[in-house]
Structures are given as structure tokens and as C-alpha cells.
């Protein structure tokens, strides 16, 4: 499979937090789960790879092109959505769309119509009239209609009921089958148990593990860390806390 996103040595220094040498890659048609507890650095990582936040060092490449110097070209081919964010709450979707599509050279109107039907969205509604799940679907429909080859999703299932979450996970699986790469940050680990192919686990700003989910799960099971992602993560977090505590005492 070809690589869609490469993150190498991504570092961001804050006065009280450091995202330290984060390295991972996402392949075409795969779902990469970015996991970690609150404050581990998931959102900082996502913001840095979207160039919303300046990185202290490191390299980010999409489709083999470095982000620097190719930002507009890359943005034509990526999509982003965050669960809690909605844009132009009181404007009709039709009006938001009319403006948005003008920015994308590969905008596909028939795909937009298809996603509107598939996601049961109404163009005459405004984002403020949509449920949280529908807002995520709206952002997905917009991203997919401009031909996004990678979707970067920051906590897209936060605040959703279990049925809406399950519905979205089905959509992610369908998109991955069609070749879209998905980078999906969440602290709802059970979501990734259901749909992720690969995992990048961030712990206190550092990558604790990255690679195929199944292989990592097997490895952790053999070590007796737990049977599923959630148990394994809790085990590893506790271990890290004890180590930090022991380090402080020494």
C-alpha cells in the first residue's frame, strides 16, 4: 500500500508540555487510530500535521510531498473534521456549500449529492439544526466531495450516542474500503477496537507504540497487559504513572 501521510520526528515545545519526536505513517485505505489519554498530545499532533500549530522540529509529508511549499496543493487532497466544531451555525448548508466548493478544483457535485442522500442531510438546514453526529457527517460529505484522499478526524465520535457512533464507524470502514486513508484520534478506545487497522499510541507526548493494531494487541496480550485495547491502555498508563512516581522518589 502507498503511504499517504508521513510524520517524522514531530516535536512541539510548550512551556509545560513537549510533543517529542512523534513518528508514524498512514497508508492508503487504512484507518489509523491515534490514541492516548486526555492531554497526551493527540490534538497537538493533529494540529501540527495540519499546520495549524507551528512545530519546533520534524517533517510532515503528504503523498510524498513536504507540507512546506505544497500546502495549498495538499489541502486540495485532505479533509479535516473535529467532533465539537461547527462552522457558520446559522447559515444554510446550501449557502456554506456554494462558497466552499469554489475553493476546490476537484469538487464533485454528483458525489456531494450522493453523500447528502446517504447521510440523510438536508441542504436547507443550518449546522445549528443538526445533531452532533450529523455535523460530523456534513464535514465528511464536504471533505469527500472534494476528493479528500485522507481524512484527519479529531475526536469525531465524542459526544455521540452509541448508535450514531456505530453508524459513523461503519461509514469509516466503507470509506477505507474505497481507498480513503483515515487518521482518527479518540479517547473512546472501543471505537478503535471496532474499526482501526493501525494504532499510534501517544503517552505524555511520546509515541509509545505505532504499527498494525492486531500485531500490537497480540504482543500486549502475550505480556499479560490485557485482552483488548482499553485494558492494555489502562495497564500501560498505570505502569507509566508508577514509573514516574518512582522516578520522582529517587
Amino acid at each position, binding site marked *: 500500500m502507498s503511504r499517504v501521510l508521513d510524520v517524522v520526528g514531530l516535536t512541539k515545545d510548550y512551556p509545560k508540555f513537549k510533543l517529542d519526536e512523534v513518528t508514524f505513517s498512514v497508508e492508503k485505505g487504512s484507518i489509523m487510530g491515534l490514541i492516548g489519554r486526555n492531554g497526551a498530545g493527540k490534538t497537538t499532533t493533529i494540529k501540527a500535521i495540519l499546520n495549524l500549530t507551528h512545530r519546533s522540529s520534524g517533517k510532515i509529508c503528504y503523498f510524498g510531498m513536504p507540507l512546506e511549499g505544497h*500546502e495549498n496543493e495538499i489541502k*486540495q487532497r485532505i479533509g479535516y473534521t473535529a467532533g465539537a466544531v461547527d*462552522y457558520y451555525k446559522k447559515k444554510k448548508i446550501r449557502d456554506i456549500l456554494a462558497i466552499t466548493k469554489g*475553493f476546490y478544483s476537484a469538487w464533485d457535485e454528483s458525489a456531494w449529492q450522493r453523500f447528502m442522500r446517504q447521510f440523510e442531510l438536508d441542504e436547507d438546514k443550518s449546522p445549528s439544526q443538526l445533531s452532533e453526529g450529523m455535523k460530523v457527517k456534513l464535514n465528511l460529505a464536504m471533505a469527500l466531495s472534494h476528493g479528500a484522499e485522507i481524512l484527519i478526524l479529531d475526536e469525531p465520535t465524542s459526544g455521540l450516542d452509541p448508535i450514531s457512533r456505530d453508524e459513523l464507524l461503519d461509514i469509516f470502514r466503507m470509506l477505507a474500503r474505497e481507498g480513503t486513508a483515515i487518521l482518527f484520534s479518540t479517547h473512546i478506545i472501543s471505537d478503535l477496537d471496532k474499526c482501526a487497522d493501525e494504532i499510534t499510541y501517544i503517552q505524555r507526548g511520546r509515541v509509545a507504540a505505532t504499527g498494525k493494531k492486531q500485531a500490537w494487541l497480540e504482543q500486549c496480550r502475550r505480556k499479560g497487559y490485557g485482552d483488548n485495547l482499553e485494558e492494555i491502555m489502562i495497564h500501560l498508563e498505570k505502569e507509566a504513572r508508577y514509573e514516574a512516581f518512582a522516578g520522582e522518589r529517587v
Partner: protein
Amino acid sequence: MKHLLVKECKLAASPLSYLFLAFALMTLIPGYPILMGSFFICFGLFHSLQSARENNDLLFTILLPVSKAEVVKAKFAFAVLIQLSAFLLCLLLTLLRVTLLKGAGVYTGNAMMNANQAFLAYQLLIFALCNRLLYTGFFRTGYGFTRPFLAFGIAAFAVIAVTEALHHVPGLAWLNATDTMHDGAQWLILAMGLLVYLLVTFCACRRAVRLFEKVDL
């Protein structure tokens, strides 16, 4: 840039930015500090910044295939569009006052500022301050506009107070003349006002681009 400006006008702007253009009509009010209209027009622009923040406009725009610099330039372009529309309205009303209405009693006996070319130059000065203090200040953080607006408000009221007092200074009464259509000095002041506006706005935009480049969203 065309798409971005359309986005500014149709999605990001507050309706108040357009409605407050009606404050240009204050140009016709006698016995009133008519320069206040310029402050209110900028207050309409402040509402657009507020609306943009509430609607996550900057995040939405930055994720489009455009650069950060273009995002800033589009916001300035919108401000200039509103300001020049207001200026055009005020120019027409001022021309009415210095031609057809130049002898009207309410204006010849007006103790406050009259609408003439100097008034238009002062208006451009207030617009320039809006761009430099409010807009550039906003792009320092990408979300904070309270301090920039306060700074602009203080500066704008200082300009209004000084310019209202200026024509009472001995020798400067000509600044408040009503029949100024053929007054070369008045036209010169307007040309200087336009030059200052364009220069300050250009520099403010460049500085805002530099500041916004450093912002982590």
C-alpha cells in the same frame, strides 16, 4: 482572493457591517459631531470580527486550500470594501452639502464640524486607525478583539475631539467652511487623508500577516 472575499461577504460578515453603513447619513446632521458616524461604521466591522470568531471562521478558512497570508488579506479587503463604500456615500453627501446646501442656515451657523473635504480626510484617518489598531490587533492572537477595539475606540474619540476643536483655533476656521468646492487647500487635505489611509492600511495588513503567521490556532 476573489473566492475569499465572497466568503467574507456572505459567510463571515455580520449583517451589522452592512446595516451600519447607514451611519454615513450622519453626514447630513447639523449640530452633531458627524465624525461619530465613521466610528459606528467601524463598530459594524467589529461585529464581523465577533461573528467570525463565534462561527469558527478562521479555522474553517485556514483549512481551505489557501495560505494564512491570504486569510488576513481577505479580512482587510472586506474592511476596505466597507470603508470605501462608506466613504463614497459620505463623499456624495458632502458634495451635496458643499454645493446645493452650502448656504443652508443650519449649516452656516453650525458650531460643530461641517461636512467638507477635511471631514472626509478625518474620516479616512479613523478608518486607518481601525485597520491598524483593531484589525492588526485581532491578528496578534486570531481571537482577541477586546483590547484592540478599546485601543481603537480611544484613538478614534481622540481624533473626533481634536478635529472638532481644531476649527475653533484662531486661523483654522477655514477648515470648517461650507463652501469648499473650489478650495484647493481642502482638496489637498483630502488627498493627504487618502494617502495616509492607503499607506497605513497597507502597512497594517503586512504587519497583521506577519503576526498571524506566528499564531498557533
